[in-house]
C-alpha cells in the first residue's frame, strides 16, 4: 500500500495535545480565583485522556498503526472510546464556563442550547454518527483511501474522536448537559450502539478491509471486540450508577437507622 506523508498530522496532533495540557491548568488557575478550587483529580483524568488520544495519533503507536492492523485497532479504542471517557470526567465545559466572563459564558450557553447542538446530542443521533461512521470506515473503501491521503486520514481521525466524545456526553451526564433524556432511552441507545460495535468487529473478523491479511484482521477484530467490551461495561456501570444515585430515596429522619 502506498502511504501518504503523515508527519504534518503527527506534529499537529502533538501541538494540539500540548495546548490541551497547558490550557486546562490555566483554566483551573483562573477558575480558582473566582470559584471554589477546581479538584486536581480532574486534571489527572484530563491529562490521561489527552495523552492516550495523542499516543494514537503521534509517536510510535501511530507509526506502527499505518502498517499493523492490531496497532490501528488499539489506536481506535484509545481515540474513539477510552480518551473521550477520561476527558468527559475532566469536565472541560464546566471549567470553560467558569473561566469565561459573564457575556461570553452567556453566548456559549446560548450556543449549547441551540437546535443544532440539541440535535447532535440526542443519544440516537450521536450513536449513529459514532457507530455509523465506523461502519463507513471499515466496510467501504475508506480505510484504504485514508492511508493514501493525509487529509482524509486527519479528517477521519478527527471524526472518530469527536463522535466518540459526543457519544459519551450524550449518554452519561458528567459535564454540563443541556438536553436531558431518560435513563431508559439512553440505556436502549447504549445497548444498540454496543451491539452494533460487536457486529462490526465480527464483520471485520470475517472480512478485514482491503489490503489487510486475514490473520491480522482477525487479531485486530478480537482486540476491537474484547477491548470494546471493557470500556462498554464501564459505560454501563456509570449509567446504572447515576440511575442508582438519582433514585436515592429522600433521607427521612423517621426512616430509622436499620
Amino acid at each position, binding site marked *: 500500500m502506498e502511504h501518504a506523508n503523515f508527519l504534518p498530522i503527527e506534529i499537529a496532533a502533538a501541538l494540539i495535545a500540548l495546548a490541551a495540557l497547558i490550557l486546562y491548568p490555566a483554566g483551573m488557575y483562573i477558575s480558582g480565583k473566582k470559584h471554589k478550587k477546581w479538584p486536581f483529580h480532574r486534571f489527572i483524568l484530563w491529562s490521561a485522556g489527552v495523552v492516550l488520544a495523542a499516543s494514537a495519533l503521534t509517536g510510535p503507536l501511530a507509526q506502527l498503526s499505518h502498517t499493523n492492523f492490531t496497532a490501528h485497532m488499539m489506536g481506535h479504542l484509545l481515540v474513539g472510546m477510552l480518551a473521550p471517557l477520561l476527558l468527559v470526567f475532566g469536565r472541560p465545559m464546566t471549567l470553560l464556563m467558569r473561566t469565561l466572563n459573564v457575556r461570553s459564558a452567556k453566548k456559549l450557553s446560548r450556543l449549547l442550547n441551540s437546535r443544532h447542538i440539541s440535535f447532535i446530542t440526542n443519544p440516537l443521533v450521536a450513536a449513529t454518527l459514532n457507530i455509523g461512521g465506523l461502519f463507513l470506515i471499515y466496510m467501504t473503501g475508506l480505510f484504504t483511501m485514508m492511508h493514501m491521503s493525509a487529509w482524509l486520514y486527519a479528517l477521519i481521525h478527527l471524526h472518530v474522536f469527536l463522535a466518540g466524545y459526543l457519544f459519551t456526553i450524550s449518554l452519561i451526564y458528567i459535564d454540563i448537559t443541556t438536553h436531558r433524556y431518560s435513563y431508559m432511552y439512553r440505556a436502549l441507545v447504549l*445497548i444498540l450502539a*454496543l*451491539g452494533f*460495535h*460487536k457486529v462490526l468487529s*465480527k464483520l471485520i473478523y470475517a472480512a478485514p478491509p482491503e489490503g489487510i491479511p486475514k490473520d491480522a484482521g482477525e487479531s485486530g477484530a478480537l482486540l476491537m471486540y474484547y477491548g470494546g467490551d471493557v470500556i462498554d461495561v464501564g459505560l*454501563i456501570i456509570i449509567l446504572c450508577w447515576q440511575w*442508582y444515585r438519582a433514585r436515592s430515596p429522600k433521607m427521612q429522619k423517621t426512616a430509622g437507622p436499620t
Partner: protein
Amino acid sequence: MARKQEISHAKPAMNIWSGVLFGIGLMALIDEIIFHQLLQWHHFYDLFTPFIGILSDGLLNAFALFALVAGLFMFADIQRRHIAHMRTWTASLFLGLGGFQVFDGIVNHKLLQIHQVRYGVEILPYDLAWNISGLMLLIIGTVLFTQARKHMKPSEAR
C-alpha cells in the same frame, strides 16, 4: 412510620425486574463463556452465519452485559429501600435464567437457526438437554414464585 409506609407500598415489580434482568444477563454470559469460548461448540464467528445472525448475537450480548449490571444496581436500590423480597427475587432470577435458555433453544436455534448447540453430531439429544434444562429452571422459578406470593402480605401481593 415513614418506613412502614414504604414497606406497604412495596411492589414486587422492582424485585421481579431486578431478578429477571440479572438472570437473563447471567445465563447469556454463561452460554457465551462455556459454549462459545471454552467448549467452542458454536463459534465467535461462524462463516456460514447470515448477517442477521451476527446482528442478533451482538445485540443480545450487549443487552446481556447491560442486564447483568442494571439488575445488580436495581437490587441495590430495593435493598436500600427495604423493599427487597428475597423469595420473589430468587424466583425471578430462575425465571430469567430459564427464560433465556428456552428462548435461545427455541427461537435462536430452531426458528431463526442462527446457530445450533453443536455441529456435526446428532443434534436431537443436545436440543432436548438444552431446552429441558431451561424448562426445569422455568418450573423452579414458577414454583418459587407461587411460594413467594403465599409468604407476602395481601397488600404486597399485587
